[in-house]
C-alpha cells in the first residue's frame, strides 16, 4: 500500500527562501513520517541547488519507502522547481543555475515516467498537448503532461513547434476531451490563437476543452482568444482538467458555463490561499 501524503496543499515560496533547515521547520508534509518529510525537503533543495548527480538517489530512496511517483512530482519536485522559477524571475538565479535544476528534473522524470504510467489507477480521460509552432520550449509542458498522467489521464505529447495540422491529426486520431497549447514566447503565443482558429474551422471546437499555458499567457489572453481554461501552473491545470472530464464533462467546448466553471476553480484556490494566510497570521 503506497504512502498517502497530501501534496496539493498550497504552499508559500517564502518557505524556500533560506535553506534546507529553515524549510524543514515549516509545516509542509507534516502528515508524512519524519524520515519521508526530511527526504522531501532534501529532494526539493536538491532541485533548487541543481545538484543533479544526487537527484536519482533521493528519488530511489523515496520510492523504496513506497512514496508514489505522482506524490514526488506533485510534491517536492513541483515546489523545488517553482522556487527555481522565482529565483530566476528575481535575478537571483541566471541561466546556468536554471539549467542545472532542469537537469535534476529531467533525470528524475526519466525514472518516474514509467512508474507514472504503471501507477495509473483508473482511466480518467485523454489529453493532447504540444508547444505551438515556432516555439521550442519543453520543460513546462512536459511537467504538465506528466502531472496529467499522474492524475490518470492518457496524454499524447506532440512535442515542440507543433503546426496546427498536426494538432488536428492527433485530435482526430486520439479523440481527446482536452487539448493543451503551450507557448513560452510573446512572439509565438499568437500561434495558440491561430491553432484554435483551425480547430474551430475544422468543426472540432465543441468536442474539445481547450487549455492554454506558458510564461506570457494569462487569463486575459485565454479570454481574448476564446480558450476554455488557463493553467497558471501545473497543479491548477490538473484540477481544471479533472473537473472537465468529471462533473463538467457534459459541457461543450467554448460554452460560457465551462469558462465560468474554470474561473470558479481559480477563485476557490485564491480563497483557500487567503484562508491559509489568515490562519497563519492568526496563529
Amino acid at each position, binding site marked *: 500500500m503506497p504512502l498517502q501524503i497530501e501534496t496539493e496543499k498550497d504552499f508559500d515560496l517564502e518557505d524556500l527562501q533560506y535553506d534546507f533547515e529553515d524549510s524543514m521547520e515549516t509545516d509542509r508534509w507534516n502528515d508524512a513520517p519524519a524520515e519521508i518529510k526530511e527526504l522531501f525537503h532534501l529532494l526539493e533543495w536538491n532541485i533548487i541547488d541543481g545538484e543533479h548527480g544526487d537527484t536519482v538517489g533521493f528519488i530511489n530512496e523515496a520510492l523504496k519507502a513506497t512514496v508514489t511517483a505522482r506524490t514526488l512530482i506533485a510534491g517536492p519536485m513541483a515546489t523545488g522547481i517553482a522556487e527555481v522559477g522565482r529565483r530566476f524571475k528575481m535575478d537571483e538565479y541566471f541561466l546556468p543555475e536554471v539549467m542545472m535544476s532542469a*537537469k535534476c528534473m529531467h533525470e528524475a522524470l526519466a525514472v518516474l515516467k514509467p512508474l507514472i504510467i504503471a501507477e495509473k489507477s483508473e482511466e480518467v480521460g485523454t489529453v493532447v498537448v504540444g508547444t505551438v509552432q515556432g516555439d521550442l520550449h519543453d520543460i513546462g509542458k512536459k511537467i504538465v503532461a506528466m502531472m496529467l498522467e499522474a492524475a490518470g489521464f492518457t496524454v499524447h505529447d506532440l512535442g515542440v513547434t507543433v503546426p496546427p495540422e498536426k494538432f488536428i491529426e492527433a485530435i482526430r486520431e486520439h479523440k481527446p476531451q482536452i487539448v493543451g497549447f503551450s507557448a513560452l514566447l510573446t512572439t509565438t503565443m499568437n500561434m495558440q490563437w491561430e491553432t484554435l482558429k483551425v480547430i474551430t474551422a475544422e468543426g472540432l471546437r465543441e468536442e474539445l476543452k481547450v487549455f492554454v499555458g506558458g510564461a506570457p499567457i494569462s487569463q486575459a489572453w485565454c479570454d481574448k482568444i476564446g480558450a476554455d481554461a488557463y493553467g497558471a501552473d501545473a497543479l491548477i491545470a490538473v484540477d481544471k482538467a479533472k473537473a472537465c472530464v468529471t462533473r463538467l464533462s457534459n459541457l461543450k467546448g467554448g460554452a460560457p458555463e465551462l469558462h465560468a466553471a474554470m474561473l470558479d476553480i481559480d477563485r476557490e484556490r485564491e480563497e483557500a490561499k487567503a484562508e491559509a494566510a489568515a490562519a497563519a497570521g492568526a496563529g
Partner: protein
Amino acid sequence: MTAVIGRAVPPQRQRTLDALALREPDKVPVGLWGTVEGYQNLRQGLGMGFNENPRNYRTGSTTWTTDVAFEFDLAEKLDVDFLRVSIGPPGGSPGFRELGLDEIPVPIQVPTPPDDAEINVDEWGVVRKWTPHENGGYYEMIGYPLFEATSAPIEEGLKILEEFPWPDPWDEAGWQDSPVPGMSLREYCKYIKEETPFALMGQGGRGGLFEQAKYMVGYAKIFSDFIESPEFLEAMLVRLTDLEIEFNKAFLSQCGEYIDWLRMSPEDLASEKTAFLSLDMFDRQLVPHYNRAVQETKKYYLGKNPEGKIQFHSCGAIPEQFMRGLLSCGVDGYDSLPPKVARHSNPSAKKRQLGREMFFYGGIDVQETLPWGTTEDVRKEVRQRIWEMGHGGGFLLSSSHRLEHDVPVENTLAMIDEARSYGTYPLPEEPPEGADTGEGYEPWDPNPAKKKKRRKPKPTA
C-alpha cells in the same frame, strides 16, 4: 563620388570621429546595418539596381550571418556618415561547405531534417540548416562540434580541444576580396579613407569568445558548463581568445591604418530582461578573457592607428555592473543599444550610467518601430533617442540591429531625415515627447539577498 581635397577631413568622417571621441559633433552621425534581404529591399525601394541572388553578395561579420556592406552609391544617396566592413570567410561568401545528410559529422540536436534539406558546415565545424521564410531565410544551427567533448572526462576533453581543426586567422583568402569586385580588402579600405567622405568601422573577428563557445557546444550545454565543466570551458575560451586576437591582428595588418574604429566579434551576454550569467560568474569566468582579447587587439591596433577605438556588441539588457567590467578591459564603445529592453539597461540608462566613459552605437528599434511603425513613429523615436543619447557627443545613430526585409524604405529614410534635422547640435534641452528622462528609474540590483547555506545530507547509497 565626392572628391576629398587635400588633407581636410570631410564632414561625414569628422562628425563620426567627434562622436567616437565623446565630443559634440555638428550633427549626430548616422549609418546603416542590414541583412542582404534588407539591403536588396532598400535598393529596390530607392529604384537602384540590385543583384537578385542574395548569394551573390559578399557577406561578412561572421561566416554564418548575412551582413552585407552597403555600397558607395547608396551611402551617398542616403547621405550617411559611416560604413562598415568585415573580413570575409576564406574562399569567399557564404563561407561554408554544403553537406549531404549522410555526411553530417556531429550528432544533430533536432529531428532528422528531410532529404532535400540544405545543410552546411562552417569553418568552425558548426552545422546549420537553411531555414527559408517568405522573404529569404536564415541558417539554423543543428549540430555543434564540441557537444560531446564538453561532457567527456577532462583529459579527453582537453585533448579534443588540442587536436581540433580550428580556423586559420591568417588565411589570406579572408582579405583577398572586398565588397567591390576586383579590390582587395586593403585597397577597399584605403579607397574609402582616401577617396570617399565616409568614416569606416571594421570587424576582423569571425567567431568570438562566449558567442563562439555557445556555437561550439550548443545552447543546451554552454550555460551548465559554467558550473559543471569550468575547466573545459576555460580551456576552450583560452583557445577562442587566441583566435579572436589573431583574427583581429590579421585584419588590422591589412586595414588597420584605414579604419576609424574596430568592432570585436559580437558577444551576446544578456536577454531582454537581464544578463545571462550572474555578475560573479561573468567577472570570474569571462572578463579575464575579454580583457586579454581587447588589450592585445588594442595594442596592435593603436600601433597602426593611434586614434583607433574598440567597439563591443551585445544584444539585450546588460546591467551597468557588466558594462563596467567591459570598460575595465579597454572597450571604448558599445553597440547596438536595443531600446525595448528592461529599463535598468535601456539606452537612456546606459547614457546616464556610462555616457562620460564610452560611446554608443545603434538605438533605433528594429523589433517594432522600424518594421511596423509609421514614419511618424520612427521620427518620434529618433528624437527620443537623440535627446537621450546625443548630449555631450558619443552617439552614432543606427538601427538597433540589422535592417531586415520587412523594414519599409520610407521608414529608413525617415530615420535618416529626422536624425539630420533633430540631430543638429546644439541639441534641445527640453525632452521631446516620450523620451526617457530617467525619472523613477531603478538600477539593477547585483546583490539579491545572499542566502545563508548549510551543509545538507547526501542520499544514502
